[in-house]
């Protein structure tokens, strides 16, 4: 069924070209499609958690509303802004790579890491606050109907279970992202990226924007719905 043939294999011996690809364009296409496919799996992963959240929100509307009132909307808003800014710095880093501007690339990657750390710091503060209030689900969960709201404690605990699970998984994604960006910085400093070959930067950017978008969904679902 086949005729021996095209032998342009390895005619373009770019150092960044892996042995099994024909050219950089094919390699880049594969990388981009791979990242998008991965993000589809991420959507399904978070989708499972969102489904659970939606179901219990429907089952315990008052409890979810009351529990959501205890979240700090100011800190949540600040964190949303911080995260959006980090997406901007990521875009600027990708642009730097595209132009072959190593300084710009490294600077904005580091800025992205910094913003991510600010986000995680604020998140940690919020978690701590919940612990002090006794709103961490499990053995130490306390819900005082007089003080916290006359709703089903079970429902309120479910709200916090999903709050911690979803923001926790989100934070884990950010920590992984920080690690990956750190590796990018190291690679950039060693001159691994050129305007023809910076797929790793671009794909990390896609990942980072995805993590950002997850938060854009989490913030209203957890903090905003039902506020008056």
């Amino acid at each position, binding site marked *: *069924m*086949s*005729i*021996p*043939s*095209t*032998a342009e*294999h390895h005619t373009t011996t770019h150092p960044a070209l*892996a*042995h*099994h690809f*024909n050219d950089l364009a*094919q390699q880049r*296409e*594969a990388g981009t*499609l*791979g990242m998008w*496919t*991965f993000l*589809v*799996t*991420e959507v*399904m*992963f*978070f*989708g*499972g*958690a969102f*489904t*659970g959240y939606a*179901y*219990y929100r429907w*089952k*315990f509307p008052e409890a979810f509303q009351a529990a959501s009132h205890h979240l700090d909307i100011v800190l949540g808003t600040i964190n949303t802004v911080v995260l959006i800014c980090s997406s901007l710095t990521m875009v600027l880093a990708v642009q730097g790579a595209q132009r072959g501007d190593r300084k710009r690339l490294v600077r904005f990657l580091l800025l992205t890491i910094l913003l991510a750390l600010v986000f995680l710091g604020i998140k940690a503060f919020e978690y701590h606050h919940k612990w002090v209030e006794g709103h961490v*689900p*499990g*053995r130490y*969960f306390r819900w005082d109907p007089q003080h916290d709201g006359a709703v*089903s404690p*079970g*429902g309120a*605990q*479910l709200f916090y*279970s999903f709050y911690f*699970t979803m923001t926790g*998984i989100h934070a884990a994604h950010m920590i992984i992202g920080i690690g990956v960006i750190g590796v990018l910085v190291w690679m950039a400093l060693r001159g691994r990226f050129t305007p023809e070959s910076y797929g790793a930067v671009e794909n990390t950017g896609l990942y980072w924007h995805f993590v950002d978008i997850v938060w854009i969904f989490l913030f209203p679902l957890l903090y905003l719905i039902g506020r008056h």
Partner: protein
Amino acid sequence: MTTIPIDEPRIEQHSNYLTNGYSVKSWLLTTDHKRIALLYLITITLFFFLGGAFAVLIRLDLMTPAGDLMRDETYNKMFTMHGIIMVFFFLIPAVPAVLGNFLIPLMIGARDLAFPRINLLSWYVFVIGGLFTLASVASGGVDTGWTFYTPYSSTYANTHVVLAALGVFITGFSSILTGLNFIVTVHTMRAPGMTWFRLPLFVWANYATSLIMILGTPVLAVTIVLVAIERIFGVGIFDPKLGGDPLLFQHLFWFYSHPAVYIMILPSMGVISELVTCFSRKRIFGYGFVAVSSLLIAVYGFLVWGHHMFVSGQSVYAGMIFSFLSFFVAIPSAIKVFNWTATLYKGSISYQTPMLYVFGFIGLFAIGGLTGLFLATLAVDVHVHDTYFIVAHFHYIMVGGVVMGYLGGIHFWWPKITGRMYPEGWAKLAALIIFVGFNLTFFPQFLLGYLGMPRRYHVYPEEFQILNVMSSAGASILGVGYLLPLVYLFWSLRWGPAAGPNPWAAAGLEWQTSSPPPTENFEKIPIVTQEAYAYSEGSGFPVSPEADYKEGGSPVVHS
């Protein structure tokens, strides 16, 4: 194209993927898809026989109505470990991770999968997940059933549920990575001229499977995370006592686990499509239908999960809708069966071992599929739910279907993988033993279930003993049938006759390179001018069976 038979085929001495390094490191750090396929082959074979050992103990225990061999708790652990190991560590990876890994790049004319290092990573992830599960076995086993139903798994079970669940969670990522790799490879790595509708049906099947892997597996992963959180921190996500809902767990679990049935069966169907054409010397009937039916199964499989929950408290209307939808998922499967049958019609059929597995597959899958329609019928399901009828049904699909396809494929591509022919006589005998043993094991279980014997019980009324003993006897025959290939395939590695590049005179691209293939798969990337089923007179892939289907075959070189 001319055909030049060569008298004395020899293993080609020039370097191939097996001779490219002999050190342990050259295997454990390989990024060659063919070597990774072999790593998977070894690993899942170990798991298969471990899961089989649990099955042996189950069948031994069921020989007597009193369940004399083990205590109740032990029996619960036996069927749980059998299920977890067979489902997650054998059936799901079997065809894609071994045959898919080995064949997809060869079939589409690529040098490797798109992400060779991720491919290696997927094997390591698989092994790590397996070690967690083995650790849970070693530390006393798990007794929740392979379905991990809550709140039993999350609150009440006193076994190492988290350890086993973590094993399944981790292994899920190996499945996701494999699926991702296949999808990107099929999209971006096809050789010039390899259009979508020239892709071998095995590739189509694996592509559809990969879609299920990347869409379904993450949902299982997050479900396991929720169960683990519930169990570790004592919160009530699925515990009704604390406001949670166990049905939510079942919905999430079956949203993955029904499509997972297709993760198992679709790649095997792909194998059957390849085998049935080669041994009928005929183009597949209805290529487009067979290809698209794989995609239909992948998509449609996501809409029917509720048929596992007819009696677990979902609303009657949900039950009716899921029942109705479940009938439709039979259509694309039936399309495949009809097309295979039509391919056989007026074909020049030869009864080599792989073809015996094709017949085994079609017959057993038809029984498994038709009894699936019984179970999709709401009223009938209420009667036979949680009985041995279910057990028999899904074993006809998974063992009768998946394992038959897997073994057929292993035999068919064995000469490509190793460069050696397996002993045909022994292989035919083993195929026959497996077929007989399988039916003797599982057909009585249909009867048992219909008569009312519940699954997961090891103490039963005396009138069920005869059928249970028949089933156990069948299982021992089946066991012999599975051990035979293990022996003669090993034997063939050293003493099997050299196969030559194309012992079956098959038309697929993977047969156009030497056996075993070189590390880069092809000397030169081929230009593809026709699909993989171009059997016709004068094409080099003749329509009559070659006289050379004798042991050892004689290779046909196409130039």
